[in-house]
């Protein structure tokens, strides 16, 4: 439920001189923790490097090159960057035209605008023709505090229904860097949820490598299996470490390719032992990875003893600082730990 504009916030009820000093926090939009190692603009650098040896690659953006890390590509290959203005329908149409002429356009905007505003143009101009267009979108799920205008909490639900579209939800800088060349090598339309700016680097220590279309077990455990994508893999890995101290042994299966889903690996992991299965995602609980996994189980003979979802509520979310919102909506490491413990105690 959103706050009412008719109710003044409680903290203003204190006398003026005694109020705590208020700070603006909605600008805090980094998903990186204070001590986390990061890499700057992994998508922009990976694409710029790839384009050095691939003349087909062009970059196109709808007035958000600077905010989707495509400015790195633009600086490296200025003659291969196209500014299409704040016009997402045109962005998708013109990318289709570029692809028709043999180029591989990488288009960037925010996930809300691609999924909500430009759906028909991705669907008919690009996907129906299986054109080689890569759609890379910042601010997926809850990665900004700007409220529903910028929070693409339902982008996966919207786009999973589109035939021919491959959907990628990477976890960290390593995932992105390794995904870019594989996405380029895959012929056909791809939607990738983008983590931009200083992106955490967490998967390196697990010996992980990205393979398009594959889920990867990152850690094993006998008590619970957490299936996750995107930034939630980062969170559940942290949660698993904390749970270990309390004697809880949680496995983590990272699923960066949302579509096509690696059903074989998911079913194989879900069928092992008698573990609680939890799907964690940075997306509404409607129509994302959780429901995709549930549907996969429904169509199979595999029945886990319990199945739970960590996801955003089916609601328009509040504005605020990202750490506050992740805590409020259950995506923080602490909330993941608490949820897991509660479910294991059931």
């Amino acid at each position, binding site marked *: 439920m959103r706050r009412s504009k008719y109710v003044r916030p409680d903290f203003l009820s204190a006398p003026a001189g005694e109020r705590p000093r208020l700070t603006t926090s909605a600008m805090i939009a980094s998903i990186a923790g204070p001590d986390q190692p990061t890499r700057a603009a992994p998508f922009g650098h990976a694409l710029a490097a790839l384009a050095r040896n691939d003349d087909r690659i062009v970059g196109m953006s709808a007035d958000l090159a600077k905010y989707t890390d495509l400015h790195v590509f633009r600086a490296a290959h200025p003659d291969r960057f196209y500014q299409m203005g704040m016009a997402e329908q045109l962005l998708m149409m013109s990318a289709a035209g570029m692809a*028709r002429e043999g180029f591989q356009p990488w288009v960037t905007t925010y996930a809300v605008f691609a999924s909500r505003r430009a759906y028909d143009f991705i669907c008919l*101009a690009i996907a*129906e023709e299986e054109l080689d267009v890569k759609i890379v979108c910042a601010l997926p799920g809850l990665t900004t505090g700007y409220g529903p205008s910028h929070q693409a909490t339902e982008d996966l639900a919207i786009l999973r229904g589109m035939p021919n579209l491959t959907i990628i939800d990477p976890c960290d800088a390593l995932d992105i860097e390794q995904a870019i060349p594989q996405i380029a090598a895959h012929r056909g339309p791809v939607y990738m949820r983008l983590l931009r700016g200083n992106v955490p680097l967490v998967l390196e220590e697990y010996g992980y490598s990205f393979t398009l279309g594959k889920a990867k077990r990152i850690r094993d455990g006998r008590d619970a299996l957490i299936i996750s994508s995107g930034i939630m893999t980062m969170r559940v890995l942290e949660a698993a470490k904390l749970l270990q101290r309390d004697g809880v042994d949680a496995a983590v299966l990272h699923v960066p390719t949302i579509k096509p889903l690696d059903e074989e690996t998911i079913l194989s992991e879900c069928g092992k032992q008698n573990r609680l299965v939890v799907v964690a995602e940075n997306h509404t609980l409607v129509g994302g990875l959780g429901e995709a996994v549930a549907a996969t189980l429904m169509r199979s003979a595999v029945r886990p003893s319990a199945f739970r979802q960590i996801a955003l509520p089916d609601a328009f979310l509040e504005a605020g600082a990202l750490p506050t919102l992740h805590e409020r909506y259950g995506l923080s490491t602490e909330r993941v730990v608490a949820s897991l413990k509660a479910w294991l105690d059931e």
Partner: protein
Amino acid sequence: MSSIGHNISLHERARRIRRHALRMGEVQGQGYIAQALGIADVLAVSYFHATAYRPDDPEWEERDRFLLSIGHYAIALYAALIEAKIVPEDELESYGTDDSRLPMSGMAAYTPGMEITGGSLGHGLGIAVGMCLGLKRKRSSSFIYTLFSDGELDEGSTWEAAMSAGSHKLDNLIGIVDVNQMQADGPSLGVMNFEPLAPKFEAFGWYTQRVDGNDIDALVVAFDKARRHGGPVPRVIICDTKMAKGVPFLEARERNHFLRVEPGEWTEALKIIDERVAP
């Protein structure tokens, strides 16, 4: 320009395009026939005067691309593709039937010479913008022609594309607007007043012409001027056409956006078309 059949007049081409369209319409007993008859002269000039293509190689790299944004007009473009020998004439009897290469709405994956999938309106001009940018990257001298309708002027995406074409100085883009004054819900200007139209394109930086879209001689001049214009600007030819042009009893129908024609009327319409004497 195709090198075939230079001895056949454009008027005769237009007559044959109407004839092919009517024969396909007869297969289904209904369809966007009035649009096909109305745009036949523009298609005759496009395919037999203005565009370069190879009938036996529809994907020849150096061709001019002709994009049908209005997928609903597929029957019209099929008629032109049949006349241009890109689609074999005997295929017209399969129009709109199961497993045909000529489905009711134009789709690129189905038909030789169909460059894009239209039908969801307001896509063509934007795809053309991307193709024009791509052609320029390849240093190609080919033109992109895009046929869209007055109804598509209601779609915001058309205007996103129009603005960007001016901004990107796309002098290899030639837009063709079919102003036939009829949409699904009735007369176009009653659905959404898009006039004055020419000044809108001019304001977006286009070289703009407006002609009688059923006057072949005027169309030839307009297409020539569009191609030869020296400025670094996109070009548009606004074509005022008459729905069902050439078949007076169909022209007279008040609501002819989607025509249902009685079996005997097809023969009558074909007879009228066949009796027309080419000037």
